[in-house]
C-alpha cells in the first residue's frame, strides 16, 4: 500500500483556507452565541414576563432538534417565511454562508444559555444579598458582581461546549460550504487519496481539540470557589471548600 502524504503538502493552501473558515465560523458562533445566550439566561433569571417563557421554549427547541435538521430547516424554510412576510411574496434566499453563521450562532446560544443559567444557580445567594444591601442596582449587580463570577465559574464548561461547536462546524458539508473537512474531503475524493487526507484532518482536529481540552482543564483547576470560611468544616475535620 503506497500512501502519498506529499499530496497534503500540495493541497495545504486550500486546506488552510478551509481551516480559516472553520475558525471563523466557530469564533462567530461562540461569541455571538455567548452574548445571546447570556442575555437569554438573564431574562430567565429575572423572570421577565412573556420573554422568559419564549426563551424557555426556544432553548428546549434548539436542544431537542439535531443541528443538521436545524441547518436544513433554516436553509429551506426561512427564505419561504421571509418571502411570505415581505411584500414580494417570493422566497428570499439567504445563501449557505449566512445560513451557517446565523444558524450556528442561534443553536449555540441555546446551549450557552443553559450553561450560564446553571451558573447563576451556583452563585451563593449571599452574593446577591451583599450586592443588594450595598444598594447596587440590578444592572450593576449583574454586570459587576454576578456575571463575572458566573463566566469565571462556567469557563471550563463553556470551553468544552466550544470544542463541540468546533467539531460540529463540519456539518456545513450539507450546505456545500468549504470548511476544513469539506475541502479535505473534496480534494481526497477528486485525487483518490482518502486515507491520507482523512488521516491528516483527524490529526489536526485531534491536536486542536486537545489544546482546547487542556485549556478547559486548567480553567477548571483555577476556578475561584465562592468564598466562605465556615467554622463547622474545621471543627468536623473536613477539608475546607
Amino acid at each position: 500500500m503506497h500512501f502519498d502524504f506529499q499530496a497534503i503538502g500540495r493541497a495545504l493552501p486550500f486546506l488552510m483556507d478551509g481551516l480559516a473558515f472553520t475558525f471563523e465560523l466557530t469564533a462567530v458562533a461562540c461569541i455571538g452565541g455567548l452574548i445571546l445566550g447570556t442575555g437569554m439566561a438573564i431574562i430567565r433569571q429575572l423572570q421577565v414576563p412573556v420573554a422568559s417563557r419564549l426563551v424557555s421554549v426556544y432553548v428546549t427547541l434548539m436542544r431537542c432538534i439535531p443541528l443538521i435538521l436545524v441547518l436544513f430547516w433554516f436553509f429551506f424554510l426561512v427564505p419561504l417565511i421571509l418571502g411570505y412576510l415581505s411584500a414580494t411574496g417570493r422566497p428570499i434566499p439567504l445563501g449557505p454562508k449566512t445560513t451557517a453563521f446565523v444558524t450556528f450562532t442561534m443553536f449555540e446560544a441555546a446551549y450557552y444559555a443553559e450553561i450560564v443559567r446553571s451558573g447563576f444557580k451556583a452563585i451563593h445567594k449571599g452574593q446577591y444579598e451583599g450586592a443588594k444591601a450595598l444598594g447596587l442596582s440590578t444592572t450593576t449587580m449583574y454586570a459587576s458582581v454576578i456575571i463575572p463570577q458566573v463566566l469565571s465559574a462556567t469557563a471550563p464548561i463553556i470551553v468544552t461546549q466550544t470544542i463541540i461547536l468546533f467539531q460540529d462546524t463540519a456539518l456545513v458539508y450539507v450546505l456545500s460550504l468549504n470548511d476544513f473537512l469539506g475541502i479535505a474531503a473534496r480534494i481526497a475524493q477528486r485525487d483518490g487519496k482518502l486515507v491520507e487526507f482523512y488521516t491528516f484532518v483527524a490529526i489536526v482536529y485531534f491536536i486542536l481539540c486537545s489544546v482546547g481540552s487542556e485549556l478547559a482543564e486548567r480553567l477548571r483547576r483555577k476556578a475561584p470557589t465562592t468564598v466562605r470560611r465556615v467554622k463547622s468544616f474545621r471543627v468536623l475535620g473536613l477539608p475546607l471548600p
Partner: protein
Amino acid sequence: MHAEATSNETIVTVKELQKSYGDHRVLNGVNLSVKRGERIVICGPSGSGKSTLIRCINGLETFEGGTVGVTDLKTGTQLTKLSDIRREVGMVFQSFNLFPHLTVLQNCMLAQIKVRKEQKSVARDRAMHFLQKVRISEQANKHPGQLSGGQQQRAAIARALCMNPSVMLFDEPTSALDPEVVQEVLDTMVGLAKDGMTMLCVTHEMGFAQKVADRVIFIDGGGIVEEAPPTEFFYSPKHDRVRAFLSRVHDHGQPVAA
C-alpha cells in the same frame, strides 16, 4: 460604654411587623424604634425571627403586614424607595458576602462609584481610610479568598462603612468565624460603637452585648419578649424564657443547641 443616645432623632421605626414563610408565622406584630446613636443587640433562640427582623429593615425580606421606616437624618424625611433605604443602611452578614473576583479595595470602592457616584480617587481614599480603621489596610490589594475569616469580616465591615450609612445592621457577624478570630471582629464593632454609629446587632455574643448595648431585645416565637438595658436584662430578667435562654448561654457566646 452605656452612654445614652445623644439625640431624640429616630432613625428606624418598625410598627406591627408581620412576616410569614408560607403557613409559618415568623414575626407577629413586632414594634421597634431605634434612635440615632443607639446600640441594640437582638438575641433569641434559633428560628425566633431575629435575622428576619433586620432583613426586613433593608428589604432583603418582604413582609405582609406593618410598616418599616428609615429616616434620612439630613432631611428628616422618611425614606420610601428601597434604593434610598439601602444607601443609608449598611449590613454585615454571617457569611461576609465579599465579592471574590474583586480585591478588597475594589470591593470597598464598587458601591461608592456605582451608587454614590463618587470619583474613583475619592472612593479609593475613603476605602483606604476605612480599611485602615478596621486594621487591614495592608490586605487592600488581596482577594478575599486570601484572607482569614476574621480579616474578611472586617473587610466586609469596612465595605459597608464606605457607603457612609446612618445605621449598621449586623446579622450574626461572628457566628461563622473560628473562635480565635471572633475577638478581632468584636473589637472592631466596639470601635464602631465608640464612634457613635447606630447599630442593630443580631448576635449570640453576650459579652459584647453587655459591653456595648444600650438595649438588649429578646425575640421568641415571633415577638419581642423582653427589652431592657443590659444590666437589667442579664441580671434581673423579667421573663422565664429569657432566664432559660441565658442559663444556656456561656459567658462568651455560643448557646448550646436550643
